[in-house]
């Protein structure tokens, strides 16, 4: 059983290396297209800094995926209390926080040029910051949890915290604000080269998100299984408590 666990992790890593390679190649293409191929936008949109858009928007999209995975895992954990769901929730929350940080760093740099200030208490910016802090709180709570009760509490926090996601998404429609709204259902908000660059970037970020989420969840699951097996071995008298590394 122990050998199988190690082999599974190693086999997954090999398979995921291929996917990560494709994601990396697409990411390099997206970077080249954004910085070199896509045209500069009008001054009101930030001019040259509008190029931040090509990584800023896909990062926000991956943040939503991370939150979705975290909520799915948390609901599953609350229903079944298994380490698989918990691992998925943890991986999703980490991904959400990493990509939300990218959004919160790249956005103000763009805003400095387009709006003249790094930060404005715009509805979308404020709700994004709030959402990020909720998932940071989830990760802190989860990392300090020593039993099922804390994990259940963290899972409930994730489910309730996810309610802020639709608010982030629809905040520009609800409360206007300064945030650009160029991706419309009718299209036409972007020049064709800009749209293609954004498309490649979305593809790269989607593949990368899938790879990172899968690998991180497998690792979290592996960690939980090793801890469970060690506890089981101690209870069966196969190991002493002091053998715990």
């Amino acid at each position: 059983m122990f050998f199988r666990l190690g082999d599974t992790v190693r086999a997954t890593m090999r398979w995921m290396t291929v996917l990560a390679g494709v994601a990396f190649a697409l990411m390099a293409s997206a970077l080249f297209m954004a910085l070199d191929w896509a045209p500069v936008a009008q001054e009101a949109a930030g001019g040259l800094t509008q190029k931040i858009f090509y990584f800023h928007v896909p990062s926000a999209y991956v943040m939503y995926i991370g939150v979705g995975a975290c909520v799915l895992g948390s609901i599953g954990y609350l229903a079944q209390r298994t380490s698989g769901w918990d691992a998925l929730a943890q991986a999703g929350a980490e991904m959400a926080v990493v990509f939300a940080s990218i959004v919160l760093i790249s956005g103000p740099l763009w805003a400095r040029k387009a709006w003249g200030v790094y930060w404005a208490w715009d509805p979308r910016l404020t709700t994004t910051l709030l959402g990020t802090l909720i998932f940071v709180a989830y990760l802190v709570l989860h990392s300090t949890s020593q039993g099922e009760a804390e994990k259940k509490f963290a899972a409930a926090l994730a489910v309730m915290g996810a309610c802020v996601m639709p608010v982030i998404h629809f905040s520009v429609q609800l409360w206007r604000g300064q945030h650009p709204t160029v991706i419309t259902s009718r299209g036409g908000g972007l020049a064709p080269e800009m749209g293609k660059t954004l498309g490649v970037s979305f593809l790269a970020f989607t593949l990368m998100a899938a790879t990172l989420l899968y690998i991180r969840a497998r690792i979290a699951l592996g960690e939980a299984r090793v801890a469970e097996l060690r506890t089981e071995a101690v209870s069966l008298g196969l190991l002493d408590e002091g053998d715990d590394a």
Partner: protein
Amino acid sequence: MSPTRPLRAAALALALCLTPAVSSAQNDPGAGDRSMAFRPVTGAQERVPGGRLVVTAYAAVLLLLGGYVAFIARKASRLEDDVRRLEDDLARRAPGEQP
């Protein structure tokens, strides 16, 4: 429950997420000073130079992504060490030595 079931569920959720994230119409006629479209321009003179801001933003993105990948790699390596240590601990205990 199979340990991979949550991961399969995540893959399904990911696929469902692909479409709506980009769409979401925003047709607010009174959008005021918000930017509704990005138009290409040629030969524009930048009042505030944006090159440094773009480089900083992309460097931050790559740094954060690289940092997270390094964090995951370290976790994977630590997990392998833990599995190996558990195997060694169990192998060290011969069956006859059990209390």
